[in-house]
């Protein structure tokens, strides 16, 4: 009862190490999966009924490193990077991520620096980080042991730190993919771990030491102090903020969205105090197989995020036509988790950030087309940083929604009707009349 489909063009032969095993570039998906199943699931819900996401499993298999780390001892400068696992929650793995070389390794774990890089570059960065794993418990954050204490200090580091780790066995040569976080490289159970002195970021340290401040207040104040989101997410994940009795470790991939969601919620609250923009604004931007368009509507805050996945893209391998999916929030916000997942919150953060900078509010409609050149999910940072870049471009201004829309459509390839069918904001903007249009008696009215 399975259906075989061909994998799309892969990203270069560099990573094909297992050609003998995976001769055919094909993936098994259950027949009852329809074209939207993958998009809704994104490897998280396992809607196809398999124990592992077959798309991710296949991609990971294809991406095995040719050259493996043949050593149980690793010495190198960590960016600093740490990892908090999700499997076995609340008993989870934690550990450092260390490349086998010294120097300025910051870029390996700093997605803010990855805009404009190719997917191959990002995979190279991630492959070079060897992840040590050690069992912990989420509540260890309230009373950190030796390793967690070292990781927490590391995570506060201002620059890369020299470290040495030994493993119980040789690291595997896997690249672990997921929708939320950047890919993770090879891993092995950690035996010993040593670090040089860490020069910590005093802004983060202050919040770490404040056990009367909520995690939400801490991350917002760090954000406002200019600390990179990646660093906030890293330290948040290690349970370093919040009231002392409530501190917990948070798996990296959950922590990313928790921080995006919390920050954007607080920013939106501020944005709602500002006057609305005066005209329709359109932004467009293209980056590694992704086309983005944002339409700002001169109305009070609300937000919609719609993605269109072309056939042969990661989450629409089965489909014959582009699949669209999105989420919306009205002025009051939303109370349920967005069905598209973490990218919604990353997009909302980038949008709220822009509006706050302009000291304006608006209804924001952001559209994203994913084309087959975007071969792998590299994490939601890609959405956040792309939309930051999108909203840094100079907008075109229009006086009506249809004009704004038709400008955005010039850059996009999906037709207006398909977007409108999936967009509440677009339908409202096109169909909903304003009461102010009726203040003057029109000629076709019966007197």
């Amino acid at each position, binding site marked *: 009862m399975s259906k075989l489909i061909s994998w799309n063009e892969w990203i270069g032969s560099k990573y094909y190490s297992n050609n003998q095993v995976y001769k055919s570039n094909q993936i098994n998906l259950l027949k009852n999966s329809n074209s939207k199943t993958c998009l809704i699931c994104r490897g998280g819900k396992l809607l196809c009924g398999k124990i592992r996401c077959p798309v991710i499993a296949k991609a990971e298999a294809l991406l095995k490193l040719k050259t493996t780390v043949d050593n149980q001892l690793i010495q190198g400068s960590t960016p600093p990077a740490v990892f908090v696992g999700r499997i076995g929650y609340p008993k989870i793995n934690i550990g450092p991520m260390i490349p086998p070389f010294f120097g300025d390794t910051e870029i390996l774990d700093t997605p803010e620096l990855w805009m404009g890089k190719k997917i191959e570059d990002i995979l190279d960065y991630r492959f070079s980080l060897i992840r040590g794993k050690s069992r912990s418990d989420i509540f260890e954050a309230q009373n950190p042991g030796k390793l967690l204490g070292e990781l927490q200090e590391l995570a506060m580091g201002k620059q890369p730190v020299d470290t040495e780790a030994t493993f119980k066995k040789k690291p595997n040569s896997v690249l672990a993919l997921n929708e939320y976080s950047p890919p993770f490289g090879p891993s092995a159970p950690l035996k010993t771990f040593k670090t040089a002195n860490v020069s910590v970021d005093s802004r983060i340290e202050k919040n770490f030491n404040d056990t009367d401040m909520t995690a939400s207040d801490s991350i917002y104040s760090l954000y406002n102090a200019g600390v990179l989101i990646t660093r906030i997410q890293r330290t948040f994940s290690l349970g370093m903020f919040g009231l002392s009795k409530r501190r917990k470790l948070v798996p990296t991939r959950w922590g990313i969205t928790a921080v995006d969601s919390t920050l954007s919620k607080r920013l939106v609250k501020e944005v709602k105090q500002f006057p609305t923009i005066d005209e329709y604004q359109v932004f467009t931007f293209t980056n590694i197989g992704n086309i983005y368009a944002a339409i700002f509507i001169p*109305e*009070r805050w609300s937000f919609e995020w719609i993605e269109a996945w072309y056939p042969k893209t990661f989450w629409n391998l089965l489909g014959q036509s582009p699949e669209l999916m999105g989420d919306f929030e009205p002025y009051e916000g939303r109370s349920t988790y967005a069905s598209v997942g973490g990218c919604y919150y990353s997009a909302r953060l980038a949008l709220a950030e822009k509006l706050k900078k302009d000291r304006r509010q608006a209804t924001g409609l952001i559209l994203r087309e994913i084309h087959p050149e975007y071969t792998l999910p590299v994490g939601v940072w890609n959405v956040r940083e792309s939309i930051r870049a999108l909203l840094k471009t100079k907008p075109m201004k229009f006086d009506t929604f249809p004009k704004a829309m038709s400008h955005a459509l010039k850059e996009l390839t999906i037709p207006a009707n398909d977007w409108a069918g999936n967009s509440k904001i677009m339908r409202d903007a096109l169909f*909903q009349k304003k*009461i102010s249009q009726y203040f003057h008696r029109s000629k076709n009215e019966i007197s």
Partner: protein
Amino acid sequence: MFKAVVQDAKIWKNLLTAISTLIEEADFNTSEDGLKLRSMDPSHVAMVDFEWSKEAFEEYVCDKPTNIRVNITTMLKLLRRSKSEESLEISYDEERKKVDLTLRGKILKKFTMPTLESVEEEVPTPKLSFNARVKLMSETLKEIVEDSETVSDNISFKAKEDKLFVKASSELSNVGMELSKTDGALLELDIKEDSDATFNLNYFGEMVKAGSATSEVATIEFSTNMPIRLEFEMSQQGKLMYYLAPRIEAE
């Protein structure tokens, strides 16, 4: 100076709740004859038009017309503290630019809240004539709205011959309703011309739900692809009226 006393604070609370479904801040225009509030929601899709004549108050003093702009949400938050059988006194201190809300029950409670700078130009009323007029119990209207909300974000009204047809549809499901005077669902039905129009249920639903608390009887008036007017009759000399612009899908 401005001072008004309402015998039952709950009435005022319900009215403010009804107003707050559309707007957060608004000007109360006070004059010798009474109090008015007319304001559009921030998206300019809907409008609330509220009037209370001085006779509707237990006591009413206003020596010169004044615009008092308040945050409705804040005022409502204070009024939520009211209990049944408490009277409410609203007064405005021009010098301090504060509104005092005094609740008199077993305990005398005085809340003071700030006013805001009045910025709003006077909002005109839409120039409309209506070809269909339907009077029905607020409860009936609420039921229609709630039934429609189960399937759609929009509600369509169609007045034809001696019936009101209500329709709500989404991609997969839809609901259709028929109401007539003979079946007892309507109190009055007056059709000059067949009329058909569609409205956003988020707006309309909120209006109906909040308005129903203020009156047992509601009147809707509409024409083909034109705004709807929703009025809640007050037993005293007051009116609560909403306008909502239509949704027109076929351009």
